[in-house]
């Protein structure tokens, strides 16, 4: 099991643990106003970043290791978020504006008399958690099966994945869909009886996100270092060849795609209670493209890099929208261009490359191994 985690992984998990536990500790025990205190909003912010990191991991799994560029992964994230959101709406009960114990406010407003069938089971938190994995997983299975079976790859796949998320966005924007329309699901009060505004709940959700991130990382490492992972890499690098050798490439890709979608769903489910709203604009194609940027900035194919990229870019966004409200888009756009031009392997990738250079200088020259060039 320990061979699962290499040096990078060990550092990564350590940092996640320190940040998560440290933030909670400093939030609770350090006195307010002191330089060590971590304010409440920062706890939620860290939780949000951790969810984004998990989402980035899921994209790195399929992009870095299976060569599938999905420009619609935000859809899986949002579906998971909606699954959780539905449950949170049910937990409001009769404390909504119209005081209806069975129906959320927006349904009362639309004059609906009862819950539609697809809301069945949403009053159980366990069901919500399962649905947040099952719904994106099912969509990924259907979409992926159709796509990979027809050998839709590369840019075509990217574009139709964008179409998928765009269509979902339009659908969820419709008020008639029964998901709150443009306003989305919001006004959450409690999760499993715990008040969402309480510090303890917030800290708990953040820790849950940290655990999910760690779990996701281990899962990805497990998948990519196993035999399955090696075949997946072969499929990424030379799909036809792998197929001719006898591996069912579609099945390998499909499996990765579904697992990745489920991870994204979990990230979404944890994201929604921490942010307080889930809304169709999460389905926007622009959001999905941003995820790709996080992974590219951090380092594609390194897992750790993806998480790092997610945190860095979002932190930059948070900081810049406050510090340079009129110009932050320039900064962000330039960041993307610079990273793609000068750091194509991303931060972690570049550092790994530097380290290798350094090591090569130290080692005595050895017989060159036949390396498969990468393009």
């Amino acid at each position, binding site marked *: 099991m320990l061979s699962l985690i290499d040096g990078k992984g060990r550092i990564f998990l350590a940092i996640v643990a320190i940040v998560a536990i440290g933030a909670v500790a400093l939030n609770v025990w350090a006195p307010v106003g002191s330089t060590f205190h971590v304010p409440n909003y920062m706890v939620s912010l860290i939780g949000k970043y951790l969810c984004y990191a998990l989402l980035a991991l899921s994209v790195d799994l399929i992009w870095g290791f299976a060569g599938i*560029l999905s420009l619609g992964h935000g859809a899986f994230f949002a579906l998971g978020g909606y699954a959780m959101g539905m449950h949170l709406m049910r937990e409001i009960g009769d404390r909504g504006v119209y005081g209806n114990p069975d129906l959320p406010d927006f349904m009362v407003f639309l004059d609906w008399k009862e819950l539609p069938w697809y809301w069945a089971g949403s009053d159980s938190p366990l069901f919500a958690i399962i649905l947040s994995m099952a719904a994106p997983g099912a969509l990924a299975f259907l*979409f992926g099966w*159709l*796509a990979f*079976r*027809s*050998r*839709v790859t*590369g*840019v*075509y796949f*990217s*574009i*139709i994945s*964008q*179409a*998928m998320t*765009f*269509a979902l966005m*339009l*659908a969820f*924007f*419709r008020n008639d869909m029964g998901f709150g329309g443009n306003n989305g699901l919001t006004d959450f009060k409690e999760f499993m009886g715990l008040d969402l505004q309480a510090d303890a709940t917030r800290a708990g959700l953040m820790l849950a996100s940290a655990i999910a991130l760690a779990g996701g990382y281990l899962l990805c490492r497990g998948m990519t270092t196993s035999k399955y992972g090696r075949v997946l890499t072969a499929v990424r690098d030379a799909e036809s060849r792998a197929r001719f050798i006898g591996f069912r490439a579609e099945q390998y890709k499909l499996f990765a795609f579904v697992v990745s979608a489920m991870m994204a769903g979990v990230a979404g489910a944890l994201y929604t209670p921490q942010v307080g709203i889930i809304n169709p604009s999460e389905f926007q*194609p*622009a959001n999905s*493209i941003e995820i*790709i*940027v996080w992974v*590219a900035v951090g380092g594609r194919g390194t897992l750790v890099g993806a998480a790092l990229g997610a945190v860095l870019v979002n932190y930059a966004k948070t900081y810049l929208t406050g510090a340079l409200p*009129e*110009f932050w*888009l*320039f900064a*962000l*756009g*330039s*960041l*993307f*261009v610079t*990273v*793609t*031009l000068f750091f*194509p392997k991303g931060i972690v990738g570049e550092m790994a490359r530097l380290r290798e250079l350094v090591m090569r200088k130290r080692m005595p020259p050895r017989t060159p191994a036949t390396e498969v060039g990468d*393009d």
Partner: protein
Amino acid sequence: MCQHHNLKLCRLFTTISLIILLAMLSGFISFTAIASPAERDVALALLIEKSSKKRAAGVDALAASGDPAAASILAAMVDGDLFFQKSDNRVVIAKKQADGYAVIDPILNEALGVLPSGDIKKIRVNNRLRRQIRGALGGLNLSHSNAETRLAAAYGLQKSPDPALRPALKSAFAKEADTDVRTAMGMALAVIDSRPEAAPKDRLVAIELLTDSDSTEARVILTLLAGDTEKDASVRAAATIALDTVEDRLFYFQTLGSIFQGLSLGSVLLLAAIGLAITFGVMGVINMAHGEMIMIGAYVTFMIQEVFRSFAPEYFGLSLALAVPAGFVASGALGVVMERSVIRWLYGRPLETLLATWGISLILQQAVRTVFGPTNQEVGNPEWMSGAVELAGGVLLTYNRIWIIVFALAVLAAVWALIRFTSMGLEMRAVTQNRRMANSMGIHSGRVDALTFGLGSGVAGMAGVALSQVDNVSPNLGQAYIIDSFMVVVFGGVGNLWGTLMGAFSLGIVNKFLEPVSGAVLGKIIVLVAIILFIQKRPRGLFALKGRAVEN
């Protein structure tokens, strides 16, 4: 009457009395003619009042006064050109100029010079007054010398029928020589005759006349007459039959209308997608900044129009002719710069190009936002692009969309010709089919790439010029078209212009036929899902390019 013995005297006497009688009569007539200035002045005084009820009364009074200036005063009022001088309450017609208002007295028909805007106050109208005035003008202008004015009068009477004007209308109809005006007058008569107060036989005649008309007013009346409010059974029956005939005829034309709408939507999609088809097809580059190239073309149009507005407003109609090449050059140049500075380093890595171009699109959006502001900019339609041509059945083909269809096809033809007949086109095709081979043959693929990208971006710029005529011009313009452009290119087949053409038009028509049935949102969703499923079946799109091109 005269006894024969006093014949001469009698005749003299009769003649003189007749003459006196005639003089009295004409004096009476001219007395009434002279009497109207007072009525007119009373009417004008009412027009200046604040209350719109009083102004409405003023309009009626002015129309009834029979004053020769009434028509021009009322026409000015409905156009918003009627004012009154604050100093002496004199009603005037004023046209805005650079240095104030050029003022004319409508009654004496003399110019009063130029007055500053503070000296005059507008006589306000609202929708109700406008309708009333048009009806009044209808009555006044029935025998106007100008055929256009008579036509407008007839239309006005169709909309606001006044039974009191029936005799005047009938006599004008009898004398009318111009066929268009005659038809309009006939319709106006039919409208008046269809009212419940008219005799049933007149109404049946009116129904027959109305059956041949395609105007909405006619349908309105037929619907009313066929409905339950109509007391006379024979009228109701006749109207129902007439209505069915009309609606059958209309259905055919409405389908034509839907096809036109689909073609125009398709032409918009085509324009947006051609540029992308070129860059994607030849270079395999996913250019996420394509939408911004379109946006830049639209802004170039805005800037050129501003220049025309400030310096040569008479030539505003030419602004688009200038904007098209300007948009091409601006976006094309930007495209070449983008290619040389960023994209060429990312060769063979289409996914990285996607990211880099996404970053560039953010920068371009923000740049435009900073320079021009985030709000919409006013891009006007020149005269020859406004309005519509009316086909039978009330189907309207708006001019701007007709022009856009023509323009889109012209651009496509130009691009096709470029690729087919020029040497650059030959090089582009060679590089698309087999880059390495082309390189070995001596084609400088780097230069071809730069020019291709420039061409694709330039075409996007021209698309922006056209789109500025139908859509908002704002920094977000690009985002609205990027997804649709991708859909068209992927659906139609990469690297193939016919595919783009067919893809764009079929998507447009399907969308427009779905829209009345399922609503705009659901229609779009259905189209997207259909494309996704279609791609599963035919991954290379409608017209796939043979060869190992795009994968490598």
